[in-house]
């Protein structure tokens, strides 16, 4: 181990990385919020404080674990943030860039800490430190005496911290009036009541300080003097607070003091308590109906009040962070238990068949009881694995803001259904493909503002990201209001790349599917954003890897919609067990639409392919034995069709027999068989038999690709 790498155990390193990552994620999204606000000319000081505390916590954690490089960068960043909040440095673009650079560097260093390649980054750390030092040049501050002339009570002025004093000056600079609000509360309930009052005040200005004092009844009461900066008039505040406070006194800004506040920039009144506009609309009107009482989940950056609470030393959340591997293991054990239970049931059935009826009845009763408890255990463990997709949203909104900033496009990301729950593993695996789709939507879909205006569209583009549950599936939709996908161009490209021989052979919908072919890219200009050599084929494969499907719809000039359909969990699934040519296979029940007896008389052929007509719709057939190229001696007279579906596509799978439903745990086949389309893994049936699990999405995709 090198000198830069402290001797830390793997477990400690994991703990550190998990915690540091969480902090940085928060800082990252707050930073984008801050940058957005700064663009608008004014920002929320509480947000800056939250970022400052994030850097401070990261420094603490890194220091505690002995990761000095991370601690050093966090420390320098914290210094810069401290100067910002004190107004010693102004929040100009170069400083914002430097903050972004800091957060990126910290992410890089965390990765390097994990890989043990920290020393490769020494130069970057030094350059970063130098850049920060360059920013922190002493500037002239307002002479401290100038506040005395305001006539504010000395007790309040005397107990202001340097930061609060700066906020006070900042409020004056913004042309706000100062108010001292005197309140009195019962000692037993003051924190609740004061909390309510400050919430109200924060909606009308900035609460600069809260000074407790002894009231007239110091045995039962406690008084507070609140210093507020606000645009409201004394009259307005008095009306607002009538009956809630003892007195409101205004301290009008004095011309002499105003003059001494150099570099005065009048700023529109800022609503210090509002969340960034437009990012998290409170309505979910267009998404799948959701329980009205469920507020949008914790995707929004912490509000000022929440951030303040977090500063308390006592951790407020009662959660345990668990490695997903442990949950997987637990789930596997539960899976094995379910299988063991079903073999006990099978034994009971056999016993009954062989005449041990009384014992058989007892045994099957016991097995039933076990089954119920196992069911509870299974859903309990499953529940632990489920997380709201809102966690993904947070990442996505950050990415969107970064890309739009880089590209000079104006895009609103609208999020719906953030509380939809999905298996943690799927959420992890879906993050990259989803990010890629969103990037594409902004990069290729949304037009530049000028072009949008010329087209008569709103210059701000919209990307809607919505999630909802549909049966055993979760649907995630990404919809943009950009230019749509030019199918003619897709055909042309595919032709040029040799992916397609006859452009007329495909319908528009089929042609659209070409973008999922390996080596396809319609971008005329490879940008930094989507042209990373990762094509839509990788997106589709990654989604298929978690048994998901992706579908596109596009409307020329109006936009496109990507629909991702995912199973809620991968851990234990119900499967239909079928047999074909002497072998058994499992089909996830989630992809089975229906099954029916196949009468050979119904089979017709269209272009040499077998089809049947099911309720007036032509259903293409696929004989499973032929698909898997399994030899068979004779074909039974009676066969079944299992209609499988993925997204909008349907296929009739012809099998010999339907053997019943069973819970199965899908085990991966390993890298050697990874490339086989149509098979997602293997499963143990509980009676020493191992069977292959068919992947409906894969089979359908393979059929589409080879044209049957």
């Amino acid at each position: 181990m090198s000198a830069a790498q402290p001797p830390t155990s793997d477990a400690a390193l994991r703990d550190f990385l998990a915690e540091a990552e969480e902090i940085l994620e928060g800082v990252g999204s707050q930073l984008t919020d801050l940058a957005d606000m700064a663009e608008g000319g004014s920002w929320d000081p509480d947000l800056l404080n939250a970022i400052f505390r994030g850097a401070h916590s990261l420094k603490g954690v890194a220091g505690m674990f002995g990761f000095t490089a991370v601690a050093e960068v966090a420390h320098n960043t914290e210094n810069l943030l401290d100067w910002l909040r004190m107004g010693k440095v102004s929040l100009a673009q170069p400083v914002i860039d430097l903050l972004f650079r800091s957060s990126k560097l910290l992410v890089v260093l965390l990765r390097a800490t994990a890989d043990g390649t920290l020393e490769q980054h020494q130069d970057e750390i030094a350059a970063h430190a130098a850049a920060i030092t360059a920013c922190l040049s002493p500037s002239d501050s307002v002479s401290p005496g100038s506040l005395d002339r305001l006539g504010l009570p000395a007790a309040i002025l005397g107990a202001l911290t340097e930061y609060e004093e700066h906020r006070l000056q900042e409020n004056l600079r913004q042309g706000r009036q100062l108010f001292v609000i005197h309140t009195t509360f019962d000692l037993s309930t003051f924190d609740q009541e004061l909390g309510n009052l400050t919430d109200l005040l924060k909606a009308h200005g900035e609460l600069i300080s809260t000074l407790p004092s002894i009231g007239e009844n110091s045995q039962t009461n406690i008084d507070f003097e609140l210093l507020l900066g606000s645009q409201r008039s004394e009259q307005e505040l008095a009306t607002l607070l009538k009956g809630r406070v003892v007195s409101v006194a205004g301290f009008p800004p004095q011309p002499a003091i105003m003059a001494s506040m150099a570099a005065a920039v009048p700023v529109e009144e800022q609503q210090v308590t509002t969340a960034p506009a437009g990012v998290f609309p409170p309505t979910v009107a267009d998404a799948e109906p959701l329980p009205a009482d469920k507020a949008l989940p914790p995707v929004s950056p912490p509000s000022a009040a929440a951030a303040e609470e977090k500063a308390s030393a006592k951790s407020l959340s009662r959660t345990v962070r668990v490695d997903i591997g442990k949950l997987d293991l637990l789930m596997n054990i539960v899976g094995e238990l379910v299988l063991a239970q079903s073999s006990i049931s099978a034994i009971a059935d056999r016993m009954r068949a062989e005449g041990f009826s009384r014992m058989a009845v007892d045994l099957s009763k016991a097995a039933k009881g076990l089954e119920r408890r196992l069911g509870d255990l299974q859903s309990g463990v499953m529940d632990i694995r489920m997380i709201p997709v809102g966690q993904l949203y947070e990442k996505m909104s950050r990415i969107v803001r970064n890309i739009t900033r880089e590209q000079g496009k104006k895009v609103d990301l609208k999020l719906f259904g953030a509380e939809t729950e999905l298996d943690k593993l799927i959420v992890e695996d879906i993050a990259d493909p989803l990010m890629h789709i969103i990037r594409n939507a902004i990069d290729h879909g949304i037009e530049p503002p000028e072009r949008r205006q010329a087209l008569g569209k709103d210059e701000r583009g919209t990307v809607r990201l919505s999630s909802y549950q549909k049966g055993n599936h979760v649907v995630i939709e990404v919809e943009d209001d950009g230019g749509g996908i030019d199918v003619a161009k897709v055909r042309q490209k595919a032709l040029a790349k040799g992916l397609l021989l006859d452009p007329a052979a495909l319908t528009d919908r089929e042609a659209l599917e070409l973008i999922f072919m390996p080596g396809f890219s319609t971008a005329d200009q490879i940008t930094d954003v989507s042209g990373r050599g990762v094509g839509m084929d990788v997106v589709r494969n990654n989604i298929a890897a978690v048994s998901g499907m992706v579908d596109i719809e596009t409307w020329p000039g109006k936009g496109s919609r990507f629909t991702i359909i995912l199973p809620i969990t991968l851990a234990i699934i119900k499967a239909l067990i079928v047999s074909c040519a002497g072998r058994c296979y499992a089909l996830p029940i989630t992809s089975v639409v229906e099954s029916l007896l196949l009468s050979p008389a119904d089979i017709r052929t269209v272009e040499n392919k077998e089809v049947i007509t099911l309720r007036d719709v032509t259903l293409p057939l696929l004989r499973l034995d032929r698909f898997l190229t399994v030899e068979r001696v004779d074909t039974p007279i009676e066969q079944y069709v299992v209609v499988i579906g993925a997204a909008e596509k349907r296929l009739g799978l012809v099998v010999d027999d339907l053997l019943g439903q069973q819970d199965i745990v899908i085990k991966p086949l390993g890298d050697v068989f990874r490339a086989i389309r149509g098979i997602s893994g293997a499963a143990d049936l509980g009676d020493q038999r191992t069977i292959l699990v068919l992947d409906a999405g894969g089979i359908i995709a393979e059929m589409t690709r080879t044209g049957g």
Partner: protein
Amino acid sequence: MRSLMVATIETLQPVRIVQAANGFEALRILPREAIDLILTDINMPDINGLELLSFVRNNPLYQKLPVIIISTEGSRKDIDRGLSLGANEYLVKPFIPSKLLELIQRLL
């Protein structure tokens, strides 16, 4: 940090430590417990350490209570202000535990 301090102070028998998670909690604790000495940070979520100190010094019941401010080097100006408001001592983080013990012993 907090637990380290508690562990350090607990070596001084007999002392009892009453912890407040924030300034409001400190205000609640003061009338209920017989407090002999206050240790406070400056930057706290609800009221700051200076405000707490000002409250203590202006209240006849607690006026004489020794107060030690613990804060970071960056809050040097605030520490100065705390001293002028009547704090008895200050400690700059990070500090040596024995230094804290010495101060407490001297003030109690």
